[in-house]
């Protein structure tokens, strides 16, 4: 259990390694599925080719689609593609980058299936046995006197061990076709590896600067989406807490205020409650009504904010903190300047030493 947890944590530590993990699992699943699948050639001239080539091509397409389905980035890509421009420009190179990386990962499991099928040779044997030149392998007596159609029927039975009588001819023909199949498999692997090599190793020669940018911003979009979901969850929680608290207060409103007037001492419990309530209120970030929240969620899609943080917002928070400290620590008047003019009672003097 511990091992699984550690592996899980390692894979989830970052989105890319998680996707690589899924990719590897799918490749293994594809190899395992091939070995578990019971290949049974129909051994009939009309269906051999369809069965053989179908088994070579249809499962890879299925694995490719599955790769897209399992990849989280597909919905991020779709959302980024379809959103209205709002206050944030759309960058087509980011969409291209995301699409390329999703496609690259989804292509691995199909490539594994195709190479395993070609190395095994059964599907080529099933598809191409009728195109064989039988004179090469056995004695001509086999096909003497046969019409074209009968010859083809005989050849179509080669993949089936129990249907074809002359074992040496069958074995020789099987070896021959398997050879060709394996040669095709190795060529396929060589081409795929060479293409991947060209893309990975030669790409830094071109567009490296642009690549850094697209990588950063596509990662950013993914993180921003997660942050938005987290913030919404926290907001919903605080909203619920405050809502319920307000409801209780409204119901027993007169009783509580009466109580508070009677006992003016601060209980530690009351203080904690006050603190908690205040922090919940702060977590609401000013959104306190259903319509406001609906507007937030609606605008998030239709009008994404610009990628520019306001400096005064960052500084304002800092000043607030320092002011808070000043309030707590000293009782004197502190001189200095802040951004929020007028309302602040305390201020701070900075010096660079």
């Amino acid at each position, binding site marked *: 259990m511990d*091992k699984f947890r*550690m592996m899980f944590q390692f894979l989830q530590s970052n989105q890319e390694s998680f996707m690589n993990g899924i990719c590897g699992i799918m490749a293994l699943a594809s190899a395992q599925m091939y070995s578990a699948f019971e290949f049974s050639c129909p051994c009939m001239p009309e269906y051999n080719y369809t069965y053989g080539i179908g088994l070579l091509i249809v499962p890879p397409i299925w694995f490719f689609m599955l790769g897209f389905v399992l990849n989280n980035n597909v919905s991020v890509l779709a959302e980024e593609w379809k959103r209205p421009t709002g206050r944030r420009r759309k960058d087509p190179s980011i969409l291209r980058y995301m699409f390329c990386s999703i496609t690259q990962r989804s292509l691995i499991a199909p490539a594994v299936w195709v190479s395993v099928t070609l*190395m*095994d040779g059964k599907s080529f044997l099933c598809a191409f046995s009728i195109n064989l030149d039988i004179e090469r392998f056995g004695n001509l007596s086999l096909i003497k006197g046969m019409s074209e159609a009968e010859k083809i029927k005989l050849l179509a039975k080669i993949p089936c061990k129990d249907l074809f009588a002359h074992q040496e001819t069958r074995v020789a023909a099987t*070896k021959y076709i398997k*050879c060709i199949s*394996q040669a095709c498999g*190795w060529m396929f692997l*060589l081409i795929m590896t*060479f293409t*991947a*090599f060209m893309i*990975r190793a030669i790409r*830094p*020669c071109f567009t*490296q*600067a642009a690549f*850094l940018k697209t990588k*950063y*911003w596509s*990662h*950013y979009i993914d*993180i*921003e989406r*997660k*942050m*938005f979901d987290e*913030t919404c969850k926290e907001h919903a929680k605080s909203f619920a807490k405050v809502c319920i608290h307000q409801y209780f207060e409204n119901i027993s409103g007169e009783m509580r205020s009466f109580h508070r007037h009677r006992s003016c001492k601060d209980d530690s419990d009351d203080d904690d409650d006050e603190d908690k309530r*205040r922090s919940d209120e*702060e977590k609401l*970030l*000013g*959104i306190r009504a259903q319509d*406001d929240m609906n507007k*937030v969620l609606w*605008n998030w899609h239709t009008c994404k*904010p*610009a*990628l*520019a*943080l306001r400096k005064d*917002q*960052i500084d304002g*928070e*800092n000043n607030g*903190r320092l002011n*808070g*400290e*000043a*309030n707590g620590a*000293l009782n004197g008047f502190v001189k200095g300047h802040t951004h*929020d003019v007028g*309302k*602040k*009672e305390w201020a701070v*003097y*900075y*010096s*660079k*030493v």
Partner: protein
Amino acid sequence: MERLKLVLQYFQSNSESISNGICIILALVSVKLYTSFDFNCPCLPQYNRLYSLGVMVVPPIILFFLGVLINRHTGVMMDEWMRPIGNRSKNPAVVKYLFSAMIQRALLAPMVWILVTLLDGKIFICAFSVSVDPALFSGMPNNTGLDVIKIMAKVPCKEDIIFRNISFHKAVSRYVRCYSQAVGWSILLFLIILGALARLIKPCFDDHATFLQTRYWSNYLDVEQKLFDETCVLHARDFARKCVVQFFEDMREDTILRLPHPLFITNHQEEWEDEEERLHGISKQEQVDQLLDKWYYNKPELDVTRIAHRPRTSVTWEDRGGKTLYSDV
């Protein structure tokens, strides 16, 4: 569990050992690939040699490309080679060092494949059984009506009907396998001697001091790239968080006056301090784009004296009359 963690930590401790680890894994994959591959000699005179040499040569090429692909140093080397000079001079010795390290590691898996095929012998038998002189062995089947070449080409196929109840093919196979193993062991011996000689003679030719510098700076480049990527990721995270909160706050309907904070301090605000630190003042899309462009076109010089001795902000508290109450200075 602890052992696995220790092993992982050791391998991750430095990027050279990660590369070594990956290299060894690829060599093991190559052995596994050979054992699981179903070698299928066609036993036909025209195709035997082609098939065998194909199986001996094409997988090593594939493994070589894979070795170059999964090595991290490839990216570092290409970046260092192709970048504009910027503020940092280029050192060709570093690029050469990275290149030779990458090539050496990438050559291990192909060599393992070739050695395993030679020591196993199947491929040699398939390729060279037609070149063997059948007169050396007794018991060649001569009643099959096939000519000599075709019979010799069938030797790798043990189950063929012409070899039933005779041991001619076994003798020929043994003979060719001998040759194959001899070639395999010779190549292994040659490689080991070459490696040993290179290790022993290198200090005579190479300046060790320069070598230490080159090794340091290649490791530095690798670490710098990793740290840059990590910093970008952290920055993106903080940027995103602030952007989202800013968006929420912009949607406020009612105006809220910024009144002085009450007496307490929440943890919330201390978090903002740390996060603001991590943003390093980069808070706009154009600034980020400019930063990333500059990182490529104009790499900074290797001099960190400025940040090591940068001025700290310190605080001085004065009362109404101007008297200093407290100072950080």
